[in-house]
């Protein structure tokens, strides 16, 4: 058996080995690994003189170990191998006494194992654990103060942790058995689904994300969003799932309400026999109701976001598109009348209307197309009829005017012949004289009627009489001047007061005509017992609207409706007084056709007051 080369082995050992011999503790054998601690030149020197990088603690016990023979071990001692060495190193140091043949201690064996790596790792671990503790504390504060419940489940579905918010929310005592209680707090309608989904996620090692109702401390079920992810350490399957539970009740209720609302609106829209649609803020149609597809014979895909424009009559498409773009750009409501093609190719008139509705931050367009084809046709028929009527009316006016005009000449001739007859012939019979007077009266009335008829037609034509600012006082004076013979004959007194409203915007001929008729009426129907007193007053109503009052003290008349009197052509109040009944009818026509109205107040035997409101309809 070969002797092992012990000294050789010792020299190359990665641990430091040295002998300290005799009571003086001189270095004897020093291996290479020990050189880094005590230097290569230690052999033969007393350790007290040559301590190298050995720590004071070790040097202090040397004598004692030598004296007592008790071994000494020091773990992870900080040693400074060379005075100038930058890095300190850690060694496990051991002193083991060895003895001579008499069993007396003869020296010490010094062992030094470099544990710097282990020590660094240990210190790192220590620091790491401090950091971890800090993080842990922070995490706990966060999980326990955030407005959500956090939890941890294991692979068997047992609940290993729930943050204090869970207890606060559910009102469960801290000692509650989470795993057992939790499923019982889930709404019965959601429970199976939740348990199934959670189990499936645990089996497949994935996370989950679902909503369910959880019973709150007050017994109310609230919608919660539960999200969890597995903690993965590959290649092992996950052992824990960490998750958060957030209350989403209000959002959920709102979303439900919106969904319900949307569904209801669509249901409603689908049951209305009109074309109804909605569009995004950008103007893309995103919904057409059933009727739209029924009407057009196209499905929603055919129609697409802008297909509606293809339904318009080709001559109106470009205009319809332009208008839509302008409305989308400005937000103005859309409105137009267009022909839209039905499934059978027939175009029907529609009014298309759309308005933008701001539903929170979301803008949407709501539109309808109402079929107005029948109204449209009716309107056209009416328009045609109206045009025809207007023409007939005009023709009639012309005829009446021509007739009254043409008849006046023969009437004048008749009057001439009659006057001639009366001048040349003699009538002995007094009855005949009365007859003559009657013929005279009839002739006069005939002429007046013809004259009034002509005037009526003329005034109707003069409705286009241009309005201008008139001096009311001046015109009243002129009219009264024109009636001077009647005024003098009846010894009438006339008072004109226009101070309150001296100006009026009106047609000159119309104002004259109105005043002329009213004043001549007042003169005509004066009371036989007293001279006529006529007051003309121009003033402003409390609303600032111009009015003219014509008050007399004449016969008066009976009225059916003072605020809305009816004057008909040829209907006369006082049949014993000559007249044609045209005057008041004319007045009313003129005033009404210019947006005003006539009121009248009257007491039989005392007088009548006409008030013309020039600009306010009855």
């Amino acid at each position: 058996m070969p002797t092992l080369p012990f000294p050789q082995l010792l020299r190359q050992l990665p641990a430091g080995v040295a002998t300290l011999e005799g009571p003086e503790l001189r270095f004897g054998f020093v291996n290479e690994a020990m050189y880094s601690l005590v230097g290569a030149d230690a052999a033969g020197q007393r350790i007290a003189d040559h301590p190298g990088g050995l720590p004071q603690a070790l040097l202090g016990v040397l004598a004692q170990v030598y004296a007592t023979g008790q071994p000494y071990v020091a773990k992870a001692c900080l040693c400074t191998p060379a005075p100038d060495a930058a890095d300190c190193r850690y060694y496990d140091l051991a002193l083991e006494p060895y003895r001579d043949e008499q069993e007396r201690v003869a020296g010490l064996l010094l062992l030094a194992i470099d544990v710097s790596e282990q020590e660094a790792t240990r210190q790192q671990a220590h620091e790491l654990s401090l950091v971890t503790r800090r993080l842990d504390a922070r995490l706990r504060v966060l999980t326990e103060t955030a407005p959500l419940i956090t939890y941890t489940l294991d692979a068997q579905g047992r609940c290993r942790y729930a943050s204090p918010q869970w207890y606060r929310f559910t009102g469960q005592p801290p000692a509650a058995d989470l795993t057992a209680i939790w499923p019982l707090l889930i709404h019965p309608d959601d429970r199976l689904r939740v348990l199934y989904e959670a189990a499936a996620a645990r089996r497949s090692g994935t996370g989950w994300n679902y909503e369910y109702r959880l019973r709150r401390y007050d017994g109310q079920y609230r919608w919660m969003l539960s999200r969890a992810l597995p903690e993965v350490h590959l290649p092992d399957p996950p052992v824990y799932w960490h998750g958060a539970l957030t209350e989403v009740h209000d959002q959920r209720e709102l979303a439900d309400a919106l969904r319900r609302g949307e569904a209801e609106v669509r249901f409603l829209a689908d049951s209305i026999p009109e074309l109804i649609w909605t569009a995004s803020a950008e103007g893309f149609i995103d919904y057409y109701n059933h009727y739209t597809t029924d009407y057009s014979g196209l499905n929603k895909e055919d129609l697409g976001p802008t297909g509606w424009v293809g339904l318009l009559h080709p001559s109106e498409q470009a205009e319809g598109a332009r208008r839509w773009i302008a409305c989308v750009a400005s937000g103005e409501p859309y409105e137009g009348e267009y022909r839209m093609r039905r499934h059978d190719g027939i175009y029907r008139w529609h009014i298309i209307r759309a308005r933008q509705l701001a539903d929170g931050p979301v803008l949407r367009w709501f539109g309808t197309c109402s079929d107005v084809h029948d109204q449209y046709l009716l309107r056209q028929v009416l328009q045609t009829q109206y045009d025809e009527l207007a023409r007939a009316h005009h023709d009639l006016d012309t005829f009446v005017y021509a007739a009254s005009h043409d008849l006046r000449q023969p009437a004048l001739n008749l009057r001439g012949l009659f006057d001639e007859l009366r001048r040349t012939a003699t009538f002995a019979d007094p009855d005949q004289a009365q007859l003559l007077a009657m013929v005279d009266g009839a002739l006069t009335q005939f002429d007046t009627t013809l004259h009034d008829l002509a005037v009526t037609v003329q005034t109707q034509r003069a409705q286009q009489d241009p309005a201008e600012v008139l001096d009311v006082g001046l015109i009243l004076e002129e009219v009264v001047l024109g009636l001077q013979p009647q005024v003098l004959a009846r010894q009438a007194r006339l008072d004109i007061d226009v101070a309150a409203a001296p100006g009026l915007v009106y047609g000159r001929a119309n104002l004259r005509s109105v005043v002329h008729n009213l004043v001549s009426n007042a003169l005509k129907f004066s009371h036989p017992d007293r001279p006529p007193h006529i007051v003309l007053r121009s003033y402003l109503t409390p609303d600032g609207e111009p009015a003219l009052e014509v008050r007399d003290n004449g016969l008066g008349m009976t009225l059916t409706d003072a605020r809305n009197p009816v004057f008909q052509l040829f209907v006369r109040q006082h049949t014993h007084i000559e007249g044609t009944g045209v005057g008041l009818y004319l007045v009313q026509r003129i005033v009404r056709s210019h947006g005003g109205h006539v009121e009248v107040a009257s007491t039989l035997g005392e007088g009548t007051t006409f008030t013309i409101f020039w600009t306010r309809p009855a």
Partner: protein
Amino acid sequence: MKHIVYISRAVHPLSDRELERLLQQCRRDNVLHGITGILFYSHGNIAQLFEGEPAIADTLFNRIAVDGRHSHVQKLIDKPITERSFADWSMAFHPIEPQGFAALQGFLLPHHVPPAPESLSIADALLVDLVRLAVFGADPSKPAH
């Protein structure tokens, strides 16, 4: 032949460099695949019309739809056409540094985009006008809206 119109939102505002790169890549690939059309970009708003053989157009749309540079891709129309309306493929946007872009093949300033081609149906022309309005606002000559 078919055409497809979509709108989308850029994930983050595209820089001049990114837009230029997109323009050049698309010009090259679209010539290769016989794709023509136009793309509008402004402030993260994107709209594009492109036309080509159905299989190629569908593939391209699927590729574009999953492109990470944008999201909320919403297809507005996808339907057969009888003829092309665009001679090539171009892109209209407001560069932050307009110098140099003018010379770029296929680049247009938004207010230089010609009106929707006559060959488009009235509904499709309206759609193009609306997406242009949605991307550039009522006044395309103004970069901001």
